[in-house]
């Protein structure tokens, strides 16, 4: 029998990129919040510049919950399971994966909110790929713009505006939608290599610009500027210049006295009362089971765990899982096509030993609907991103571009000695759409150490994604060649296994028959259950999801704070 704890206004499940944001507007409005986090606090002293530990040994992970719950994957319902990765791409800690993410902080472009209507208007309805369940968002970019702005200024985002109130500025992304003002900080600096790439892009007639990052380009809110030391990729920041929620919104919410952070809280289920409303959260901590009663529950774990926790939270009122009477939990799942890399070899050292994945040059000319698709066999596109980031183990593990007979021995050694600093791999984020037969559910076989089924991904890229991949790889190869590359390699799209950019499963929309949450992020079926994170997003765009998930989280939390008495059941 679980130990019953003292009642609270709101229980947030997961204090990561999304939950850590939502806590702040609630706390500022005087709402009592308990944040249940599976991980622990980590500090700047935990973030050593150590490639082996960070990139090869699944650290930083103070708690191994996520690693014990890695989702399984199969391409389709009749295919065998893919090999299961040994580690989860996300981490447990206060601040969650916003501790070790790349911190690229993009707004979606206007097209991403209106894929169906804009595609239909410009090219005809037949251009929506067959089998896709994509819908327009219930609102456009203009609805989310104030919340993007709030988050950018609250946590601190560095960047160059490309469109302030409709006035385009080529120093930023001219394809972005209108924003009300500049970024709070100028962009991160360029480096020698990204300057060469930017110049090559301009020669091609493209529009390169420094991408936005939740990393301080200068001192911001009493936190340090970035030191460009090169261990941002799966590493936390040793000077707190990366604006994870652990150093921004969470401590600020704590300072109000309204947020209580509970670490090592392994959430088992969301409970309901006899009227089918959320009544609180049951969690395990050091082997003891607790029940945290709450008038409102915000589920903010991660796309896979959001769907899994709902499906595991069965009750008389919801025999197929919480908020799943319409069978939509786990549906409309998709993950960004981040694979399909392009790697170039240059005849000169790029001096990329330092820097960070967010220090780069972007080209958005081939993303979304920023170019004419009339003669093409796909919709959407990709964002091209080159950046300065290299560490020695990865450098020595480089491809030899077919130029050595073996991947070891004398010739190989001579090759890596000469070329370790002469490669660059582009990060190409490409549109992925949701499809009828791509979904999440519970694995019938694989269990976590507590005996609960892990999440199962059934998903594969379709023709639209494969066409985008070829198109974007062509553009990237052209860019590298124009900048002086002497060899270029391409990777496959691969499988849609567990990833850092996982969307859907609890999609947001007005129609309860095809969406789990309403336009405010609250369950169509459980009015006092809100869901946060990219699991509510119905499209991916061609850029990192975090800032959009955070803007949505702020919006859901603000809506809750303003309407608390109508959303929360009356106290009995």
């Amino acid at each position, binding site marked *: 029998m679980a130990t019953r704890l003292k009642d609270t206004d709101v229980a947030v499940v997961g204090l990561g990129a999304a939950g850590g944001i939502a806590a702040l507007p609630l706390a500022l409005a005087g709402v009592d919040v308990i944040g249940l986090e599976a991980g622990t606090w980590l*500090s700047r002293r*935990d973030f050593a*510049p150590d490639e082996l530990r960070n990139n090869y040994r699944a650290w930083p992970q103070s708690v191994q919950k996520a690693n014990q719950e890695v989702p399984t994957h199969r391409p389709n319902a009749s295919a065998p399971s893919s090999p299961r990765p040994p580690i989860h791409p996300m981490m447990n800690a206060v601040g969650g994966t916003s501790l070790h993410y790349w911190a690229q902080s993009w707004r979606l472009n206007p097209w991403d909110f209106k894929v169906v209507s804009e595609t239909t208007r410009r090219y005809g309805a037949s251009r929506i790929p067959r089998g896709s369940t994509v819908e327009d968002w219930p609102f456009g970019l203009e609805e989310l713009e104030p919340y993007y702005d709030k988050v950018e200024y609250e946590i601190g985002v560095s960047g160059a505006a490309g469109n302030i109130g409709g006035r385009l500025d080529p120093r930023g992304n001219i394809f972005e939608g209108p924003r009300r003002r500049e970024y709070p900080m100028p962009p991160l600096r360029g*480096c020698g290599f990204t300057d*060469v790439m930017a110049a090559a892009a301009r020669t091609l007639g493209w529009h390169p610009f420094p991408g936005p990052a939740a990393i301080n380009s200068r001192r911001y809110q009493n936190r340090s500027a970035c030191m460009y030391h090169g261990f941002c990729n799966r590493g936390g920041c040793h000077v707190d210049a990366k604006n994870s929620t652990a150093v921004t919104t969470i401590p600020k919410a704590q300072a109000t006295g309204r947020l209580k952070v509970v670490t090592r809280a392994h959430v088992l289920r969301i409970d309901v009362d006899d009227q089918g409303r959320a009544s609180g959260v049951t969690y395990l901590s050091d082997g003891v089971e607790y029940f945290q009663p709450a008038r409102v529950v915000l589920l903010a774990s991660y796309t896979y765990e959001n769907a899994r926790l709902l499906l595991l939270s069965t009750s008389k009122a919801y025999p197929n899982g919480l908020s799943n009477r319409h069978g939509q939990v786990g549906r409309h799942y998709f993950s960004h096509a981040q694979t399909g890399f392009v790697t170039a070899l240059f005849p000169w050292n790029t001096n990329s030993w330092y820097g960070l994945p967010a220090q780069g040059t972007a080209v958005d000319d081939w993303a979304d609907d920023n170019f004419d698709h009339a003669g093409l066999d796909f919709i959407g596109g990709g964002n091209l991103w080159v950046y300065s980031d290299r560490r*020695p183990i990865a450098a020595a593990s480089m491809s030899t571009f077919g130029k050595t007979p073996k*991947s070891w021995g*004398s010739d190989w050694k001579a090759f890596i*000695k000469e070329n*370790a600093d002469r490669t660059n791999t582009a990060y190409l984020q490409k549109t992925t759409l949701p499809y009828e037969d791509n979904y999440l559910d519970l694995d019938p076989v694989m269990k976590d150490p507590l005996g609960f089924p892990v999440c199962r991904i059934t998903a594969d890229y379709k023709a639209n994604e494969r066409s985008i991949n070829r198109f974007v790889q062509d553009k990237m190869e052209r860019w590298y060649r124009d900048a002086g590359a002497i060899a270029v390699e391409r990777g496959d799209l691969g499988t849609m296994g567990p990833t850092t950019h996982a969307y859907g499963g609890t999609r947001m929309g007005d129609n309860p028959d095809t969406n789990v949450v309403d336009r405010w992020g609250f369950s169509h079926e459980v009015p006092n259950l809100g869901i946060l994170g990219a699991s509510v997003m119905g499209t991916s765009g061609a850029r990192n999801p975090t800032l959009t998930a955070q803007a949505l989280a702020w919006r859901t939390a603000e809506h809750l704070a303003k309407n608390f008495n109508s959303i929360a059941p009356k106290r009995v």
Partner: protein
Amino acid sequence: MITFISRRELLKRAGLLTAAAAVPVDSGSLNAQTTRPSAPSTVRPPLEQLSASEFDTLDAVVARLIPSEPNGLGAREAGAALYIDRALGGALASSRAAYTSGLAALDRYARSKTGRPFAELQADAQDGVLVDTERDVATGFDGPSSAFFALVRSHTIQGTFCDPFYGGNAGFAGWDLIGYPGVRTSVDADEQRLGIVVPPNHKSAYEGAVFNRATADNSPHDRSHHGD
């Protein structure tokens, strides 16, 4: 509980490596590199996981994967085998059984092919055995020999290019080989320009008391009491 590496501990760890790193590399002996393997260290470091014969076989393998030549020291001099020995008791413990059976199979195969144990073969003959292993021509392995080859190769690269804290990259041999200027906590704009060569600083991330080393050892990473 937060602990920091002491200067003494770091020196002790580094000192462990000098035995492996102290192999003299003079051009005279290197001229013969195509026929002779680089000399094994005369003093075998104290081992934690591998037996003496397992270590000798592994050390001979890593010396061929990344050989010591005039263009730079190799994996033997970097202490890659010692790194693997240490890690097999912790972070790489799940590979312990694969090493036991794989190294035995490699040695058996070398004997069946050449009549001599792997560690005693000339470099060319060692390379022949390794090529067979990489291409699944070698027999007697549990599972494909290429899987064992890939495992050893990836751990050899780790042990050659990791932070020396972990017992590899002795004397910064790996980082110097590929021109990595080393771990810094701050980098200015000039140091990121093209044509600039940043001088190597030869520092471990754990030198001094700046960073918490509680998770930065070869222990299994499911120890959960950390940093709370």
